[in-house]
């Protein structure tokens, strides 16, 4: 197994967590009620913590890969920090949009509360089954991060499932908003189960999870929650939907550039600044 494979795979997991954390944190101070404002930002914090563990590991791998660090002042589009060494911060703040490997789903705009909830529900369901498998990875660090994160994701899954039901089985307006969110987001769910080249390589190495095998579990869980939410017919006929993909290989929707512009601004303008 090559370090390069595990590096890219870890970076992909980290980017998913970071970008969704960044999106959810946009709700801070804007939640529909105080308790749910706190809930969505708590979820952000959990995801950010997971991203940090993964970036720290990716930085270690990258520094081992680059036995000779790049000269100071070299182009930093690939995440090398000061003195050419990667750190969790340089990977998050100093990579350009095409170097990000997150799926398209997590970078989609918050929209209204229903759209944020549905995005979280789709992603938490995916992450729940993914981390269950990743706990058995032959890579001890990835297995440990998965074991730790799964406890947090279980809370996210329960919370977002309950909100899907609350909105779907709520008022006519809340159900309509959820259906609109489904129209917006469904086309980004297929990519979760289409493996990128580094995912396939990581599976062959025994370190990664075969995402194609997660699809039935994911679909079943979505169907169960949608049935509770009185939305049984909502996904019917969507099998033929054209599924957008490319994010995992660095081809993103227009939204990611704006997210990075805001998130990376300080480090780009004041390189190495701390507070």
């Amino acid at each position, binding site marked *: 197994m090559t370090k390069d494979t595990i590096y890219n795979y870890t970076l992909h997991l980290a980017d998913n967590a970071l970008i969704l954390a960044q999106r959810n944190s946009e709700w801070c101070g804007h939640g529909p009620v105080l*308790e*749910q404002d*706190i*809930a969505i930002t*708590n*979820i952000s*914090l*959990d*995801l*950010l*913590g*997971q991203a*940090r*563990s993964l970036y720290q590991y990716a930085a270690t791998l990258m520094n081992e890969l680059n036995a000779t660090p790049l000269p100071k002042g070299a182009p930093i589009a690939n995440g090398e920090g000061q003195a050419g060494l990667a750190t969790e911060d340089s990977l998050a703040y100093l990579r350009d949009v095409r170097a990000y490997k997150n799926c398209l789903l997590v970078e989609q705009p918050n929209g209204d509360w229903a759209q944020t909830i549905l995005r979280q529900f789709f992603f938490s369901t995916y992450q*729940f089954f993914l981390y269950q498998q990743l706990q058995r990875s032959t890579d*001890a660090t990835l*297995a*440990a*991060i998965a*074991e*730790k*994160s*799964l*406890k*947090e994701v*279980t*809370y996210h*899954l*329960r*919370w977002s*499932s*309950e909100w899907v*039901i609350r909105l779907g089985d709520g008022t006519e307006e809340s159900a309509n908003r959820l259906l609109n969110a489904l129209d917006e987001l469904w086309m980004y769910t297929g990519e979760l189960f289409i493996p990128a080249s580094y995912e396939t390589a990581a599976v062959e190495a025994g370190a990664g999870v075969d995402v194609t095998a997660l699809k039935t579990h994911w679909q079943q869980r979505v169907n169960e*929650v949608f049935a*509770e939410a009185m939305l049984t017919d909502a996904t019917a006929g969507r099998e033929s939907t054209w599924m957008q993909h490319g994010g995992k290989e660095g081809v993103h929707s227009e939204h990611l550039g704006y997210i990075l512009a805001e998130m990376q601004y300080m480090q780009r303008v004041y390189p190495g600044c701390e507070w």
Partner: protein
Amino acid sequence: MKTTENISVRKVWEILEGVCDPEVPVLTVIDLGIVRDVKIAKANEEEKIEVVITPTYSGCPAMDVIRMNIRMVLMQHGYNNVQITTILSPAWTTDWMTEAGKQKLKAYGIAPPNPKQQVCHTELFAEDEAVQCPHCNSYNTRRISEFGSTACKALFQCNDCQEPFDYFKCY
């Protein structure tokens, strides 16, 4: 030789009793169960201390402060060669919280965690296991939100005395 090492290890554990969680200051890092191991190695007449810790939640912002405070308190006691190692597996659980810690939490107005196996699942709208109000001891309480003021807490309210309270949720 072995005996001296054991004495030193015990002393370090005692010193760490003085390091509190910055967000729940009644709990020490020992009460929380986040210190997993203390190892001492002798190198050139100097003792090298390794403290192994594990985070409560992945994103707990208190961890950086806790790492710094552990280093500071050990330096104050003359241990200059300190290494702090963070491990993630086995993952921290509220079951590792000490009985003394649970009592201190309750006295502080935070309901201590129930045994975890009864609450951590994905079942929806499940009845919560009864959480005791830390103010009036009633079990007639309800959950207001699964997420509270810090990653480790949920919001509850007592139906009897009406007081809202934090519950250190199972993990």
